[in-house]
């Protein structure tokens, strides 16, 4: 599989791309069907997602809860804004660590690429400070949005 790329863009965006061997429909479903999301969006070894709510419709709720099985955990909430099966998803999300982080606006595109899919995730944070804070603390819990190579930032 081709490597993931991850770059900052401007002051407030983070862009991640990744190719998958499956067609857009399957990759889209794996991002919206809670039973599928629960199987892969887990972060580091040892973490699980005991609660996964994903109401794939405009205004539908998103809630992911992670646990390391040793009493540590945190969760994410969000809402779907736009859904174009099986090519595009727009949602907002925020982490509860337990302090709530500012909204991350996320557009995910699923483009056919041969027999597979090129996925492009474009995140927009409210400002440069928030993006920096997200990079430093949002992932301290080792999950979700992990981004940015140093070369992209300086």
């Amino acid at each position, binding site marked *: 599989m081709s490597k993931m790329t991850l770059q900052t863009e401007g002051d407030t965006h983070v862009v991640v791309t990744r190719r998958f061997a*499956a067609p857009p429909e399957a*990759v889209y479903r794996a991002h919206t069907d809670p039973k*599928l999301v629960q199987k*892969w969006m887990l972060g580091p070894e040892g973490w699980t997602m005991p609660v996964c709510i994903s109401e794939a419709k405009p205004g539908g709720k998103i809630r992911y809860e992670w646990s390391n099985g040793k009493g540590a955990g945190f969760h994410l909430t969000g809402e779907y804004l736009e859904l174009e099966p099986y090519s595009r998803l727009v949602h907002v999300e925020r982490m509860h660590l337990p302090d709530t982080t500012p909204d991350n606006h996320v557009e995910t595109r699923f483009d056919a690429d041969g027999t597979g899919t090129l996925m492009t995730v474009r995140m927009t944070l409210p400002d*440069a400070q928030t993006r920096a804070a997200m990079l*430093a603390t949002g992932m301290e819990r080792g*999950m979700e949005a992990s981004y940015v190579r*140093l070369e992209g930032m300086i």
Partner: protein
Amino acid sequence: MDAASNLNAAFSALADPTRRAILARLAKGEATVMELAAPFEMTQPAISQHLKVLEGAGLVVRRVDGTKRPRRLAKAGVEAMDQWLAMLRKALEKNYDRLDEVLASMEKQKRGEKR
């Protein structure tokens, strides 16, 4: 400062475009405050203030050379941040590797249903 608060300071130092530009310049080699101020429409004291933030975040160090105080990138600070980002990147890559497996089993199931 412990490692985590050092990283926080480093990432918030990077939130400012002027400071990112200063780091980009220093990545090419040592420079004095005057040399660093030249490409910006900013006074030397303003640049010095940015350098102070970068030094506080462990990303820039200074050396004494007669009356000059040339600055350069602090290798340890930049490497710590690089390692941190590599780790985060790895967590996301791990997610997508798992997704590859989920997609493969979805495909298998689909083929099974057609039979």
